[in-house]
């Protein structure tokens, strides 16, 4: 059997086991004889019992005993002399047979199942079952059959979850490396906390005690994994907010959005962060939640504005897998008619969740009704641009100048805090959270000063992040980010097999740090010299290039970005970028994108015009290596309507380039750079020209108009 060392057989042992096999064969043939002839006599039952004691895996014999029990119970029902004692004795025998079988093999599925069957017919005494379980859980405290049976008995005999919780406490006190006990504890506590059982409310008090318990384990032997895994669960219970929250929006609360006509404006008094131009004749309105939600529609979010003339707004989930659940939702307001030489502004007010209906994917309702408002200014035409051609956008270094802001200018990440939803009755609980996390941080810093322990470092990093998030859940002040980045860098060396994981985590922290305040963000904001391109509403380029990013994050703070430089990083996926609805120019050159599927989120960016994906690894791998790295590895669930595009592609064999087709057919790119990818041969380029009719420049070459 698994986990039990066997000795090498000696000759006398072999003889003994041959004799045993012989005995078993005899028992088996006797048993079969009884079984085939419907014999349920005492002797027959004895034979099957002995057979099962020797070989509990002989499940046919367990079923025979079930038939025998039913037969004998029917008999005793019709027998006027029988009483409840005889029923008891019939079933008691079964329990005994199971017990001896389990002594032979405590992992026998058949034996445990037979016991469940008996118990579901007739309730044995609670004490008896618990004693049995004690014995088996002592013999192997990780035996999952026994733990499963324990949960079965507890629910069948209505053992209170509190008592079962006490049992896990006892087991943990006996041996805190028993992860099965910790796991059962997490299951039980989740239920108790959820229904606010007596003694399990408020949750803060309960969790404090849990922290104490797990500290004992962690500090006794930090190398034992069990406690650490429980600690991660505990941390999640501490920081998690069940109800979804609105974390940001575009346009932001209290912002003054400046809409431009078909002009190229060079008015330095304007804040470029809030300047916007759209050829599509609509203004996107984006709401960003902290978790994926469904049920966003015109009744759950109301928009009051004169811009909304088309009647009811349609909200669309920004999801790459066609799901009706998404973290980010968008709708479009109509662009107002711009009259010459008139300056007007239009107030817009958005109310989120005043009518119930927004639900997180785990089933929690949005419970923080909130309101945000902004104003839309319309700038009249200043110059007629007719005949003035659009020029190619160049990402050359000398085209960028560090942006110098004007103090009166609005803050790109402004108003995130103003949107903040203060929940009065949670005041005390948020104070408790902050204290708890701070306490944990102090403890683990102390522990790590004495030992070098990777899971300890990982836990500390997560605690520090949780702490910073808690200080200000929306515009977080990343006071610990340097320390966290250092921890992840250490972990990459200490635990190299998982270094990619740590690198991703480090990228996220780095981005949180960069976006945590105006000053740090402005260090990455550049003015793009090439201001003649009219589709650029503003000329600010956010340059997050060459900072070793392996993953993109903090997008909720970057919804205003229209020009983004992510070149010279290690990005493999564009997950999350679908939220950046204003994006018109994107530089992804020199990254590790290995397929077009990795660009999937870009399909949802309707204003994207300029895309540089040169010098990536597209085509070098015959399959997509990023799919499984995304939180939704199945981005291919999209429906493809190929039949309509038949004419567009004509003779080009679209089937060879279906991934590229999927991405580019929805985009209206005018400029694309793809050089430096294995796939980018002449054949592919001619395919691109056909499927993207709007394309004007390909790899820096102006295309001939057809």
């Amino acid at each position: 059997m698994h986990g039990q060392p066997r000795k090498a057989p000696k000759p006398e042992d072999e003889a003994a086991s041959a004799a045993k096999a012989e005995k078993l064969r005899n028992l088996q043939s006797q048993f079969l004889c009884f079984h085939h002839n419907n014999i349920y006599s005492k002797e027959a039952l004895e034979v099957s019992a002995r057979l099962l004691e020797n070989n509990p895996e002989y499940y046919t014999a367990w079923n025979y005993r079930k038939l025998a029990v039913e037969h004998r119970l029917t008999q005793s029902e019709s027998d006027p002399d029988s009483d409840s004692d005889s029923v008891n004795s019939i079933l008691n025998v079964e329990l005994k047979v199971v017990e001896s079988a389990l002594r032979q093999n405590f992992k026998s599925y058949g034996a445990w199942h037979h016991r469940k069957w008996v118990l579901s017919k007739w309730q044995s005494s609670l004490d008896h079952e618990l004693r049995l379980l004690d014995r088996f859980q002592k013999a192997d405290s990780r035996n999952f059959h026994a733990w499963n049976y324990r949960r079965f008995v507890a629910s069948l005999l209505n053992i209170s979850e509190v008592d079962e919780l006490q049992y896990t406490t006892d087991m943990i006190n006996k041996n805190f490396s028993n992860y099965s006990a910790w796991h059962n504890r997490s299951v039980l506590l989740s239920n108790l906390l959820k229904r606010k059982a007596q003694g399990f409310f408020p949750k803060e008090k309960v969790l404090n005690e849990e922290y104490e318990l797990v500290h004992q384990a962690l500090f006794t032997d930090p190398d034992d994994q069990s406690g650490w895994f429980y600690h991660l669960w505990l941390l999640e219970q501490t920081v998690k907010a069940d109800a979804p929250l609105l974390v940001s929006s575009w346009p932001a609360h209290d912002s003054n959005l400046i809409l431009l006509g078909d002009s190229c404006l060079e008015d330095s008094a304007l804040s470029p962060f809030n300047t916007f131009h759209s050829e599509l004749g609509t203004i996107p309105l984006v709401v960003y939640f902290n978790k994926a939600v469904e049920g966003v529609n015109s009744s759950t979010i109301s928009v009051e504005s004169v811009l909304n003339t088309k009647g009811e707004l349609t909200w669309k989930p920004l999801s790459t897998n066609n799901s009706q659940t998404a973290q980010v939702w968008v709708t479009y307001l109509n662009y107002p008619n711009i009259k010459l030489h008139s300056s007007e502004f239009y107030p817009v007010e958005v109310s989120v969740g005043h009518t119930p209906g927004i639900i997180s994917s785990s089933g929690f309702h949005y419970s923080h009704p909130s309101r945000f408002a902004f104003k839309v200014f319309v700038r009249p035409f200043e110059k007629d641009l007719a005949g003035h051609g659009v020029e190619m956008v160049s990402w050359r270094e000398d085209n960028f100048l560090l942006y110098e802001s004007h103090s009166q200018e609005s803050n790109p990440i402004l108003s995130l805090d103003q949107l903040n939803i203060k929940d009065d009755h949670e005041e005390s609980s948020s104070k408790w959270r902050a204290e708890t996390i701070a306490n944990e941080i102090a403890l683990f810093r102390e522990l790590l000063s004495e030992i070098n322990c990777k899971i300890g470092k990982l836990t500390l990093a997560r605690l520090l992040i949780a702490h910073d998030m808690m200080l200000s859940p929306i515009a977080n002040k990343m006071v610990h980010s340097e320390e966290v980045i250092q921890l992840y860098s250490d972990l990459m060396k200490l635990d190299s097999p998982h270094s990619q994981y740590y690198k991703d985590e480090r990228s996220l922290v780095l981005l949180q740090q960069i976006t945590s305040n105006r000053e740090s963000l402005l260090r990455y904001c550049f003015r793009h010299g090439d201001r003649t391109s009219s589709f650029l509403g503003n000329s600010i380029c956010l340059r997050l290039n060459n900072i070793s990013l392996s993953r993109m994050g903090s997008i909720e703070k970057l919804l205003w970005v229209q020009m983004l430089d992510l070149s010279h990083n290690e990005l493999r996926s564009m997950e999350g970028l679908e939220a950046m609805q204003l994006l018109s120019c994107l530089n992804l050159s020199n990254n590790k994108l290995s397929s077009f599927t990795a660009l999937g989120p870009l399909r949802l960016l309707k204003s994207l015009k300029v895309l540089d994906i040169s010098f990536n690894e597209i085509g070098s791998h015959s399959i997509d290596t990023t799919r499984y790295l995304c939180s939704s590895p199945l981005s291919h669930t999209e429906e493809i309507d190929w039949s309509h595009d038949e004419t567009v592609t004509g003779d080009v064999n679209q089937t060879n380039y279906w991934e590229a087709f999927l991405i580019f057919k929805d985009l209206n790119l005018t400029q694309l750079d793809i050089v430096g990818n294995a796939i980018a041969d002449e054949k592919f380029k001619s395919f691109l020209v056909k499927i993207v009719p709007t394309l004007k420049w390909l790899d820096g070459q102006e295309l001939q108009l057809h």
Partner: protein
Amino acid sequence: MTAATTKTQQEQWMVENQVFQIFDLFADLPRNAKSALVELQRDNHLEYLTKGLKRLDPSFCVLDANRPWLCYWILHSIALLGDYVEHEVEDNVVDFLSRCQDPNGGYGGGPGQARKSSILWQDHLPHLATTYAAVNALITVGGERSLSSINRWSVMFEVSHFCNSAYWSHFEPNDMDSEIFCREKVYMFLKRMKQPSGAFRMHDAGEIDVRACYTAISVASVLNILDDELIQNVGDYILSTHSKEGTDSGVALGLCTYPGHELRHHIDLKVYPSCQTYEGGISGEPGAEAHGGYTFCGFATMILINEVNRLDLAGLLDWVAFRQGREGGFQGRTNKLVDSCYSFWQGGAFALLQRLHAILDEQLVNYSPQTGVASDISGGEESSDGVDDKTCHFKLGGTNASCPVNLNSIGYNFVKQPGEMEALYHRWALQQYILLCAQDMKGGLKDKPGKHRDFYHTCYSLSGLSLSQHSWSQDEDTPPLPNAVMGPYANLLERTHPLFNVVLDQYYEAHEFFDTP
């Protein structure tokens, strides 16, 4: 600080010590001695396995009710080593397993005598796990005689009747004389009796768990008899998202390509925790802790029923990645010791993760762009059979109902895709553990140093080794690069199907054989 140590920790250290001693010894050896030590002892393994098939040691009598398993473990190990058993032995296996087959379908743990009056009187009741083992063993043997010995529609009957323990009161086995009649009966019975929980029982009045789901679905899929009725609510059982009765229609589950989001609001938070635990792995039943064997079973099942997107795959990846330890091998559960059999169960989860793209092909295969209508399945498969013909047939826009997914081709398309990517676990370390620590130089493989060899560990160590060696193959016709195979290149094993765990050549033969529904 003086840290106390737990018993678990001490055991862990003892194993680590043993393993590292072996590794240190290995590291100090001269080059030629090194390569001898990491050599797969093919001949010895074959001898050990072949002997096992001919005559079993009496100590195996506790496995008496699991004899199809012994057949499968041994035959599959031999096939992985690229060898065959003698014809006579093959014939014996087919005969033996035929005698394990119940006249009304399914395989029991040993040979039985058919009794007309009731199948409950079989010497060995048909059992899902042994049915899985027997079917896989017969596919591994291959050939007309072996494959035709499987009574598919009866197997299907078997699978369906496990759904209901009240089976015996509703069914007259004597009615099962003709196959066609049997088939109709099965469908009628299935529609009437399918339990809302969606799960399967191991055998009549037997236990219900994720293992049962896998063996049932795997067998049905490999025999080309999987249908919407069989898969209905299986995903709900694994995720414990039982909706209130009647709210989710069978249509939504059976025909919708990815029904995950539609079910979300039916989640009843109070019922049971999902089999996928907060750690990310999958447990045997709701509420239990995540376990390597069940994680593979649950994961493979969700793929085969085309609902894999309902799993939290990022969480699953996290969990399984952290199960590979310093020893190089995998542990089965959090804070347990390394065990070579998880080379397949956990390593297999990686093989599945890296091939998830293949399901895409399934969606693409049924549409022919010329006509705009769904082409028949065999046509789609012919094109992917072609050597260089990478033509895809695209599915029409709009979902499902008009163009249901062909469930039975999921397993086929899954391996037909070329694969080139880095494995998400440390392949080299795993192979080193298997070759140096799990190999008995006299033949056979074992759990860990200090343990004894057995057929179970031989089968699953070799299966895991094969997956690891082939995890970076360009496609099925291109052998792996030498640097993907630890030790001499002769260590290279045959490729195994990561969903069913039968050697690929044998799988293809079976796939063709069972092509007609």
